[in-house]
């Protein structure tokens, strides 16, 4: 594995810590009944968004999922606007029209979280088509879960990207469950990455809790796509610390599994260990990042809370462009 330098290690750590802190605060706000609807926590899967998006420019595109806060943050979103959206404010990314499941930030190439499992996969494919058509070197990355790999969009999109050699990278976050269905009961193959072969593109299988492994695989796939060599499929094994959604009773998992795996699959604890062991930074340096992130979250929530409630008067204006 290629060595990671200090600035890269610290940046990956900061992004992961920010995602975790965001999810913890969002969960708290939800518990306090300050939010409406539902949220899906990305806690435990931070290494994937951080490791992949580290290779992307602002003008590269991503599509995300219902579990989308992490992708949004890793792609450079403003935390205040994210919290404002969760709180239904006019100052939120979607001015209260989208909420957690539809946050988009087109200024940073984020084409949106998506409430439909697998719904973003063809959209990223179309974005990659734009890059190819206009002759730019932009890349489109689609994030999706193991559940989406059994949707038709996965099959149709990977085939189109392969025959047209599109600059697309497909990232499966295998968090072991499609809602309540364990991955073993959803696939007859052991290694999901093997499906790539059927489409004629490289498949990579990485430990999704190790941000170094994700960073290395994504670096290869993104560089390949940017160089016009076509798409790739990455499967990153992971584990979600929380249920499918806030309040999920998790009847499909044992307490032992939840507690054991939560410890075993913690990309942030792991990163702290190797960053210190490799002498890239001290524990005190990392603690300082943690404090900065906590302060940033506090500021973002305070800013969001000052925003006015989203205006119903303007609702029809956003249905059609140019009206």
């Amino acid at each position: 594995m290629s060595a990671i330098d200090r600035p890269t290690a610290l940046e990956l750590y900061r992004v992961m810590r920010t995602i975790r802190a965001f999810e913890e605060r969002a969960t708290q706000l939800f518990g306090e009944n300050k939010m409406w609807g539902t949220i899906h926590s990305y806690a435990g899967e931070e290494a994937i968004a951080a490791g992949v998006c580290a290779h992307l420019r602002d003008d590269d595109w991503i599509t995300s999922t219902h579990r989308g806060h992490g992708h949004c943050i890793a792609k450079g979103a403003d935390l205040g606007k994210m919290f404002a959206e969760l709180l239904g404010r006019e100052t939120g990314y979607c001015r209260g029209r989208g909420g957690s499941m539809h946050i988009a930030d087109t200024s940073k190439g984020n084409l949106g979280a998506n409430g439909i499992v697998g719904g973003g996969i063809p959209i990223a494919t179309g974005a990659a088509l734009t890059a190819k058509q206009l002759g730019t070197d932009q890349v489109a990355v689609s994030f999706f879960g193991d559940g989406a790999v059994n949707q038709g969009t996965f099959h149709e999109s990977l085939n189109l990207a392969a025959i047209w050699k599109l600059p697309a990278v497909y990232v499966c976050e295998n968090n072991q469950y499609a809602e309540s269905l364990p991955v073993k009961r959803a696939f007859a193959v052991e290694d999901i990455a093997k499906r790539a072969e059927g489409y004629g593109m490289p498949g990579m299988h990485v430990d999704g809790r190790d941000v170094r492994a994700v960073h290395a695989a994504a670096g290869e796939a993104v560089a390949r796509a940017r160089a016009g060599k076509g798409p790739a499929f990455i499967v990153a094994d992971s584990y979600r610390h929380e249920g499918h959604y806030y309040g999920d009773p998790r009847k499909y998992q044992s307490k032992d599994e939840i507690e054991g795996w939560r410890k075993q699959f913690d990309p942030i604890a792991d990163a702290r260990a190797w960053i210190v062991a490799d002498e890239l930074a001290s524990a005190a340096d990392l603690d300082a990042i943690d404090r900065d992130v906590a302060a940033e979250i506090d500021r973002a929530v305070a800013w969001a809370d000052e925003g006015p409630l989203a205006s119903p008067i303007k609702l029809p204006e956003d249905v059609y462009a140019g009206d």
Partner: protein
Amino acid sequence: MQATEARAPAAMREMFYNEALGDALRLEMQRDERVIVIGEDIAEHGGAFQVTAGLFDKFGSTRIRQTPISELGIVGAAVGAALTGLRPVVELMYVDFAGLAMDQIVNQAAQNRFMFGGQARVPMVLRTQGGSGRGNAAQHSKSLEAWFAHVAGLKLVMPSTPADAKGLLTAAIRDDNPVIFLEHKLLYRTKGQVPEGEHLVALGRADVKRAGTDLTIVTWSREVLFSLEAGARLAADGIEAEVIDLRTLVPLDRETVLGSVRKTHRLLVVHEAIKRGGYGAEIAAMVAEEAFDDLDAAPKRLAGLETPIPYAQHLETTVVPQIDDIVRAAKELVG
């Protein structure tokens, strides 16, 4: 508008409906390199109904992008391309196949702009065709406009003449919203005079295709042709029907419909799609709500029977309104 009116009238040429659509595609692709066409059998074959004939030779395989049989992937890729700067025109061979792609049409294309708080535009056209009359049976003959009319965020166009087909397709391609553009399989080989060069027909404007005083017939797509035939027969019997071709179902030109009903005091809506939940109900309800006091009779709908489209020719014509049916319904309404 002044400048347009002052210009010399465009030269006209007789064209088939499918040629007129191809002419619009060619001109828009020449005008804007971001316009691409994506779909099945659209390259050397020229499309199942020969709308893209000749375009592959002219624009090549990257702009006439022929795909595998993969409706969901095609429409989804068009959504992504539209979000990021292209202006894709999808050709979906039959509207009956829209079911395969419906998530990308309804949950993605139609709603992205709204869900994202106005951050996005989805300038794409989904061209497809529907309707019966060719013995293609139930899976290739439906009229599904009501599905799309019910979804906030889509525009919906159904041209009946070659000139309207060209002008409306041009406007649809230049529109910054997802436009569902429904052609009719039996209109492709109908002929009409079409303006040469750039020709735009604004979305959201109905067209009075026949003026009359005794009743208003509101219709669209192939039933416009039937209604005009019926109008000629009714005139021979002393009944003057005003025939309004909606052309665009969303947005709806309410004023033209209401203005006509206020003049004739009678409304007959004619469409090929089945009556239950059809778009005719929307027109009838709107007129009842907005112009009830102007009506001399209850609004009447003449529409398809509530069955799938059958195969045999004599059965097929039984289930959708024919010219005789329109004449009969108009006489009942006026009588």
